[in-house]
């Protein structure tokens, strides 16, 4: 009686005008039309969204969390990329 697996989709919702779409969860559906309808029913029952994206889960390429050290090292060591690295004389005030 094993049921065949339905494709998995990731759901992104824009909650308010001007905000980015944000990942809210996933769902199973046979195609894009059904995925959008299911996303509406599962994730926006209380007016949580203005717009929905559904993306096939297997279309997402993810970085490997166990290699995050190596992956993000270039950002760790470059403190001169932050404004606090630079001294501004007090007399100048806010910059």
């Amino acid at each position, binding site marked *: *009686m*094993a*049921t*065949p*697996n*339905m*494709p*998995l989709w*990731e759901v992104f919702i824009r909650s308010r005008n001007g905000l980015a779409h944000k990942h809210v*969860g*996933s*769902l*199973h*559906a*046979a*195609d894009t039309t*059904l995925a959008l309808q299911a996303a509406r*029913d*599962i994730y926006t*029952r*209380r007016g949580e969204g203005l717009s929905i994206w559904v993306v096939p*889960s*297997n279309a*997402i390429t*993810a970085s*490997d*969390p*166990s290699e995050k050290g190596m992956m993000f090292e270039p950002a760790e060591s470059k403190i001169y990329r932050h404004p606090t690295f630079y001294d501004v004389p007090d007399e100048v005030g806010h910059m």
Partner: protein
Amino acid sequence: MYTQALNTSDGDNSHIEDAARSANFQARIDADERIEPNDWMPAAYRKTLTRQISQHAHSEIVGMLPEGNWITRAPSLRRKAALLAKVQDECGHGLYLYAAAETLGTSREELVDLMLAGKSRYSSIFNYPTLTWADIGAIGWLVDGAAIMNQIPLCRCSYGPYARAMIRVCKEESFHQRQGFEIMVMLSKGTEEQKAMAQSALDRWWWPVLMMFGPPDKASQHSDTSTKWKIKRFSNDELRQKFVDATVPQAQFLGLTIPDPGMKQNANGNWEYSAIDWEEFNQVLAGNGPCNRDRLAARRKAHDDGAWVREAATAYAEKRKQRQHAQAAE
């Protein structure tokens, strides 16, 4: 995204656990870090969570049955609309939870099949019948009230996808409890007959609801490791006591009597309740509750009756894909 795309080999060979990884994992838990699907985790952590989250999901889905029983007979359009929305929420909760469970590497289809085969449990409470409209009030007030007590600490559970699902669930659950309590208020202020109906519902649901928190701490088999892993933040008895202390004043407000003549308030202000009949709990878990067979039969029928819809949707999606390929090839 984690079930199909990634995570294929992890978990299969993890019975050979590396002590250093285990220690590192426990250190992350102790530091209150969240564990995410692709992080290394002990096989037993994965197994415990898969069991717990999938049983939680099954409970939401089976929990639609006792309440769905009254949708067509709700006493007013207002009550009907609210109950329909509540039952729809339960379905949504089930789906968030299946999605969280899947991130651990077992597909929803497999999890559902285990439940339909009677190999995976759901909450014992849903094996009790809803005999009158007052039961809908009592379920919202007591069953959802108890569920909230259990679920709020789960919002801080160490497993990220479960904690995030519980945050959504808890936000929605508060309407459930309030609509149930409103039903109880109306009935308990109503005619003698309505008040008797409310009392009878409280009489029948009280003890099964106390059992929802699970076996007493000294008998619970999952508690120790679950606490160590921060899946569980409070013990069964602690949560049960919190629930009783919150509920007694509400029953007093309703003018209803909790069916426990031995109950008394101690010097700390806690309400001490009488011994719970754990034999009844064990019998319901073993499949001998009043509605176990009905519930499973209803789920199996719904699953089987819906098979053609899943097949048709899959076939249509496949056909469209083929057509697109053919057009692209032209």
